[in-house]
């Protein structure tokens, strides 16, 4: 029941936003819809904790702790971003950033597109997290790509179209490979009884009988899946679409893409990792995941060090964290899985917070380049400046923030498991990112004061920022027990206990 509600409400919000006339109505539809979705996802998490995995429609929908966590994170990000986007888009409309030559009717149409597509994007993500059938999961993933393409082209600039094109094509090719991997997985299971029915591609069924899957096919399937869903996650060397897409999309969309959509791509990888490790043993998929994870972390370091555009810096940072989480998945075991899940939760909060702060900065100073930010951010927008700096410190792993704990767990898992090289590289790359990010962002925030006028009151945006910031700080010190139980449950799904 909850699952159906989780699906229907975003669709309703999208349809409502499409048909209403006034901008305020669209905003209300979105925020209300996401608010209900958030409450429903909390209820779902509670249900999963109490009674184990939820299954509906003869196993078509399936939500265990992993799904519930991903759904909860998606819903929270969507809610915060929708409140933020109210203030953000109003400012854009007033300042003419939507396009100087657009009439007010056309601007409204643009806003309508945003407010209709975002709930559809969230709908696809939620559908994907609760779909049991791997093919349906793929279709939902493709739907997220299609829904977000027009979000990237929102501003209609030359660079937006280029970014959207790269996103579409690279994402399309990647998802085709993932589809091929899904087909091969289906073939691997075709010798199991009952594989002709719909349940033949069901993850829960395949996971149960994973040891009987055809080994050669699973090897090929996992490579294809890693290449395919890894493209969506932004792992190197398939990451080239990320900096462009994140810097061109409107900030709330970029926040959703970089935290919630990344989680979804990793979710798909995790599902297939579980199947493959139960079939072939954890070394084969683990080694591949470590390769791609460390490669992503390594590639992001030079690009962060020489970066001049702070939104692209955040994008490379996301690539870095995708690499971290992939490394954690590759390490596996109890510690690795726990580190992965904790990192996923913390990263979602911190990354979306960072993007929202960056949105504030870019709207006020009207530029994306470090060098053009005259005056300190602290002087012009004290709240944003402080929160930005804090979030940056958090995300690069400074204690006592939560990400330090998760990254520490991952490093411990590496050394415990005998992956010394992995641990060393992890620390090395982490240091590089630390230095680069701190250097650039710190310089931007704490530069010499200038005469830039301070920003006026921004209730919606600052409120959302504050909410996330509080959550980030609090979670560093105390995780509410149910949430921790949920994370532990998800980790148990991954490590197979």
């Amino acid at each position, binding site marked *: 029941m909850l699952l159906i509600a989780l699906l229907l409400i975003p669709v309703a919000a999208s349809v409502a936003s499409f048909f209403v006339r006034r901008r305020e109505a669209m905003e209300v539809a979105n925020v209300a819809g996401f608010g209900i979705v958030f409450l429903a996802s909390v209820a779902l998490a509670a249900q999963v904790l109490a009674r184990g995995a939820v299954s509906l429609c003869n196993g078509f929908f399936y939500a265990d702790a992993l799904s519930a966590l991903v759904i909860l994170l998606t819903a929270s990000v969507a809610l915060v971003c929708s409140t933020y986007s109210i203030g953000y888009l109003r400012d854009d409309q007033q300042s003419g950033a939507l396009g100087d030559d657009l009439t007010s009717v056309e601007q409204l149409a643009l806003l309508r597109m945003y407010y209709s597509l975002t709930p559809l994007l969230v709908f696809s993500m939620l559908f994907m997290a609760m779909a049991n059938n791997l093919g349906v999961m793929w279709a*939902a993933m493709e739907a997220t790509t299609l829904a977000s393409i027009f979000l990237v082209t929102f501003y209609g600039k030359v660079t937006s179209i280029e970014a959207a094109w790269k996103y579409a094509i690279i994402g399309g090719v990647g998802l085709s490979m993932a589809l091929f991997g899904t*087909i091969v997985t*289906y073939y691997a299971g075709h010798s199991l009884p009952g594989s002709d029915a719909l349940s033949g591609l069901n993850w829960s069924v395949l996971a149960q009988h994973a040891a009987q899957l055809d080994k050669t096919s699973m090897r090929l399937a996992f490579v294809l899946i890693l290449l395919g869903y890894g493209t969506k996650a932004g792992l190197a060397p398939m990451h080239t679409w990320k900096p462009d897409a994140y810097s061109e999309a409107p900030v709330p969309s970029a926040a959703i893409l970089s935290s919630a959509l990344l989680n979804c791509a990793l979710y798909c990888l995790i599902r297939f990792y579980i199947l493959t490790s139960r079939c072939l043993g954890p070394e084969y998929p683990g080694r591949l995941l470590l390769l791609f994870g460390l490669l992503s972390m390594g590639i992001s370091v030079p690009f962060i060090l020489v970066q001049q555009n702070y939104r692209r810096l955040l994008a490379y940072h996301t690539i870095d964290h995708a690499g971290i989480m992939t490394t954690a998945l590759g390490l596996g075991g109890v510690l690795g899985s726990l580190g992965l899940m904790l990192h996923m939760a913390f990263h979602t909060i911190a990354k979306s917070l960072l993007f929202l702060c960056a949105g504030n900065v870019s709207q006020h100073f009207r530029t994306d380049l470090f060098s053009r930010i005259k005056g300190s951010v602290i002087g012009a927008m004290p709240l944003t400046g402080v929160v930005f700096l804090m979030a940056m410190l958090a995300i690069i792993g400074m204690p006592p923030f939560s990400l330090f704990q998760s990254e520490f767990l991952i490093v411990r898992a590496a050394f415990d498991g005998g992956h010394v090289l992995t641990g060393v590289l992890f620390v090395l790359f982490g240091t590089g990112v630390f230095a680069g990010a701190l250097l650039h962002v710190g310089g931007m925030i704490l530069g010499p004061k200038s005469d830039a006028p301070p920003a006026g009151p921004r209730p919606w945006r600052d409120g959302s920022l504050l909410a996330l910031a509080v959550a980030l700080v609090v979670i560093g010190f105390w995780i509410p027990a149910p949430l921790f139980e949920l994370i532990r449950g998800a980790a148990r799904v991954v490590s197979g206990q």
Partner: protein
Amino acid sequence: MTPFLDMQIGDRIITLMAALVLVLQIAMVSQRWIVVHIRIFAAQSFFLAMIAATIAWFNHAPHIYIAAALTLVVKVILVPILFERLVERMEIHEEIEPIVNVPLSVLISGALTLVGYVVAESFYKPGEPGLGHNALAVAISLFLIGFFTMINRRKALTQVLALLSLENGLFLAAISLTYGMPLIVELGILFDVLVAAMVLGILVYRIRETFESMDVSRLRRLRG
């Protein structure tokens, strides 16, 4: 009616159509005119639907008929019409200059077909009855050649068509490996293909408007 139920004949028919599909894919590589590209894609999808229907007939699997019919409607009728209208609106009938010249690309496609055969070999153990064994080799070749065409071509619309022919290869692989995926999955995939074609079509149109050309090698402002 007996000859029509003979597996051997079925295998021959499927092999024949798979070979035609492969020839069409190679013809797509050597083509220069965008409209012909679209029509070759339509013909290729038609043969794929026929292969699916043949497999459905010989295996008495009615749900594959539905997949074949849907493929017919979406990929043979809707998507080509969509793209032909787009080409008319954009008024492009220009030739496409690939990055690697045409004779060499045709030869590379031949080599990729060989790779496809080799990969397909590892899927079948001897003694396993399989209708459409050859179709898997063609499917993998289609996938590889489509991928190569995407890298090779510069016009945005041709890249989209190459992506769609890649998906054609995947459809054929699914049909020949496992006699199609569960119907819901096929529905989902086809729906996605349709929406993807529409979305990409709109995107191509906007590229043409913004850049005055469909040449994607001009999309290089975002670096670093």
